[in-house]
Every structure is written in structure tokens, then in C-alpha cells.
């Protein structure tokens, strides 16, 4: 099997990521949240709980990158007690960078709300086939937090 096409795809993703970091002058002490726009509630929960992710990563701020206009508008209205920057990203770029992220090991401090993109991303199935809520999925699956605060547990 010829692996060249797939390698090129990943290299492109890396190039897009590096371009993004340079264009937005992304500081390594910031986390990056890419809102994929596949599930509005999921994206809203990611925004709602972003502070917990920033704390866990011991970051000083966050970049929020939105594929769709609506989430861009909502994100721009958010209030956090840390510096944050909201920007747009094309679907093509987001997917390309995500594919690079899924393959590579050396890309940190970035997380995505894709549910079904990438052949082994089971987040969409977890939401569909279990009674795990979007907020719980963000806490445990996207932000990899150790546990869900008591008040947020859905019994």
C-alpha cells in the first residue's frame, strides 16, 4: 500500500497548524479550542467550561477558533477571568489540523469538538449510544478533566 497520499495529508495539516500559530501569534502558554460546529450544544458546553481546561493545562489564556458564524458571535460575547481571543477558521483548515493532531504526538494544548471526524474518534457514538450528556462529554472526553463537579453531574 502506498502511504504517500496519507503522509501528504498529515504534512499539510502540520503546515496549516504552523501557519495558524504564526498568523495569530499564538503563545505557547495559551490553549487553543477549535469549535467544530457539528453539535451546537457540545460547542456551547466547551465554551461554558473552558476555564476548567485552562486551569488544568496551567495556561494563562485561550484562543477560541470557530468554524461557523453563530459560534463566533457567541464566543465573542463570553466573559472569562483570563485573556482570550476569538477568531474564525475554515472547515478545511480545522479538519486538516485535526487530522495532524490525531496522528502526531508533539502537538499539545489544543483540543477540538469534532465528534465524528477521524476514523477512530468515537465521541459522536458515545453521545448517541449512551446517556452521557454533552457537558459530561466535554468534561471527561474533550478536556480530560479528572471528574465532573457534583453540581454538574446528571444522574
Amino acid at each position, binding site marked *: 500500500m502506498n502511504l504517500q497520499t496519507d503522509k501528504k495529508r498529515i504534512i499539510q495539516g502540520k503546515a496549516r497548524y504552523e501557519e495558524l500559530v504564526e498568523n495569530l501569534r499564538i503563545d505557547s502558554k495559551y490553549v487553543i479550542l477549535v469549535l467544530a460546529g457539528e453539535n451546537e450544544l457540545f460547542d456551547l458546553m466547551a465554551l461554558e467550561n473552558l476555564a476548567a481546561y485552562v486551569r488544568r493545562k496551567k495556561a494563562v489564556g485561550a484562543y477560541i477558533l470557530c468554524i461557523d458564524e453563530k459560534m463566533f458571535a457567541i464566543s465573542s460575547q463570553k466573559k472569562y477571568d483570563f485573556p482570550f481571543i476569538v477568531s474564525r477558521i475554515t472547515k478545511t483548515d480545522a479538519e486538516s489540523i485535526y487530522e495532524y493532531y490525531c496522528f502526531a504526538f508533539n502537538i499539545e494544548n489544543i483540543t477540538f469538538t469534532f465528534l465524528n471526524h477521524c476514523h477512530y474518534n468515537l465521541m459522536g457514538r458515545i453521545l448517541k449510544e449512551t446517556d452521557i450528556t454533552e457537558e459530561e*462529554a466535554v468534561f471527561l472526553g474533550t478536556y480530560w478533566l479528572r471528574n465532573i463537579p457534583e453540581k454538574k453531574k446528571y444522574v
Partner: protein
Amino acid sequence: MYEDELNRVKNLLDTLYENGCLNGQTIILFGVSENTRQIIRLINSYGDRVEWVVDNDDSRKGSNCYQVPVKPVSELTNAEIKNGLFFIYSYFWREMQSQLIEMGVEESRIYSFFLKDRTLNEQFDMAEKGARICEDYRNEIGDYPIFLCPYTGTGDIYLIGTFWNEYISRNNIFNYIFIVVSKACSRVTEMFDIRNVRQITQIESSYVVEFYKLCGEKTGIKILNDSWWELRANPLQRFRGYKGLYFSEIFKKFVFDFEDDIKPQHPILKNADDDLNPIFEKYCLSQRRTVVLSPYSNTLSDLAGVFWINLVNQLKTKGLCVCTNCGSDEKPIEGTDGIFVPLNIAPQFIEKSGCFIGVRSGFCDCISAANAQKIILYDRKNRFFNCSAFEYFNLKNMGLCDDAIEIEYDTANTDELTDRILSYIK
């Protein structure tokens, strides 16, 4: 930790040991994990002792990790912060290291061993090697789907085996290539009708995983694991134990895609007297009056040696023979012989013996069908992701057996545990 990675860590530790860096030090490991257990074994081999394992999960307080007591990071004393020598082997090493430094530990006293990030070119190279491994097997056996079991857990292989016939039948899979990464796992496949089993090294397994990650489903590879760490876009492991997503449930739903509540099927146990009779003779074991102890676990907490020694003595006063089930690098409990029985006849060995007492491990899955008294021990404080180890792994909920006595114990009260165990033994 993979073998080559374990060798790398061993080389680093050897250097520290030879330079006298470990002498007289308060050695503390950060993070309860299988990797930590392996490092403890290495440090023990130098004659040194690990003082504590610390963990951010406060619920682990009071448990043991390879017989080293566990406490919260927050309970490190000022003396330990100042003088401790810390070792970290974790994907989260950067954050853990930062945490220790914030607490006042000098950076020079922290050794983070986690494997260096693979570069993209290294990963591409690994994927190419993985592609060649798959191609070689397909040239040898046929152009069939490949199933890879990347974890050395024998319990995983046993569970897979119990669902295997149903899975291939439902998916019209008439032939396949089944890859495992250890001899022990290979032995477990022999209990079932699993064909075309090939054993590769753990690093070769990584090659195949990188090939799968790069090229996706067109590789014809399926990873048989409840969530493999190298597949970072699969968030499933973070939901382990949450809202009923226990070991068996995750395998059924997300690995085998069963929609219904299918029951596991044990293998038919073949007569193994030809292999077992010489063992019983050699070690003077008594049929149906022998207790086999299994004190070690790769994945879960274990109990201090003194508990087992006391239990051995008590069992012997009841007129029972006692032995320890031992792997090649494991020591038998004092006062017993260490016996290694290949996993493919382990259930028959337990049946012939009559009684099994062990901490929860993959071995327990493998012997779950044995017609014998089975006492399985779980540390009440042992958490496994989002639930207790008992909730995640108990054999009854897994459908593997309903006649085992599964006990959750408190490490602070092992006398009570001993009494309880003895009350079940005739």
C-alpha cells in the same frame, strides 16, 4: 511500558544507580500506573526501596502500588519535598513536573522518563514498517482482516475470546489474522478457536498502530482494545466506569459493536492431566486441597507481603497445600513454592487444586470458568478512571462467573480480610 521503552528506562536507572544517585535517597514515584509498577520493580532490583507513590487522585490514599503505599501529592511532607527524589513516567509528565516544582521540589530532583515525543518522520517510518508487517502476514496467510490486540493484558484476550465466535459469525468473517504482543496472550488464544495467531513485539505493535492511524480503515485493521493510548483522538478511555461503561460493556458496545446484551462464552476446557499431574507430584500438591495464591496484578492495586505470609500460615494450619502462581519475574510468597502454569491450562490447574485466592488480575478472567472455589480481592480504594476497580472489573457483572467470592477490602484492616477469607475455606 514497551519492552524497548522499559530497557531505555532501565538504562537510565542503571546509570543513576551506578553513580550512587539512589543511595540513601527518599524515592517517590508520582502517579499510580502500570508504568510505575514496572519502575518500582526495577528500583527494587537494585536493593533500593520506593518510599511512596503519590497521586493526584485522593481516593487512592491508603492503597498500594506494587506493595508501596500510596498517598495524595498534597500530603508530601516538607522533608519529602526538600529531600525526595521524584520519578515520573506519564503522558502528563509536564503538568506533573510543574506541580512538583510549584510545591517546592527542585527541578534537579525530578526525573521524568516519559518517552520522547515521536517526530513526524519517525511516525511515518513506523507506519511504513507497520504496513510491511501487515503485508508480510497477508502474503503468508491471505488477504484477510487483521485484528490487533496491542495490550499485554491476558484478561483482555480472554474477554475477546469469549465473544469471538459471535463477532466473526455476525460479521461474516471467515478468516482473519489475529495479532498479540506476548506469549501469555498467545496462550490465552489457544483456549479458544482463534486461528492464525501471530505474536509480535510491542514496538512492532506500535508500527501497526501508526499504520492504522495514518491510513485508516482501508488498512483492514481493527484494534481490539477498550481504548488504546496511542489513538489519542479516541476519547473512550476517559469515560471508563462512567454511567455504566464498565470493561465488558465497553468491549461489547464499542469494540465489537454488539447492540444487544450478549453473554460471553467460555471455552471448553480440555483434559490437562498429562501436564498437571507431574506438577502436582513435583510440588507435593493435594488434589482439591490446594490453594493457589495470585498476589500480583499489572493493572490494579495489590496487598502487602505480610498479609500473604500470614494467610499462608493460616491456610497451612487447616491442612491445605499452598502455592503461588508466579510469572518469570515474580517471587512466590514466603513459605510457598512458585508455580508457573501456562495460561491455556490455568483453569484446569485451578480446578484440580480446588481453591484460588488472588488480587484481581487478568489471570482471574482466565480461570473464571474453573469449577473451584475462587476468592477475588479488590482494594476498596482502588479507582479505575471513573469508578472503583470492583465496579469496572467484577467477574459477575462481566458475566464471566457468578460463583466467585469477590471481596472489596480495606488495606487498613487486612486482619478482617484474612478472617473473612478463612471463613469461606473448608
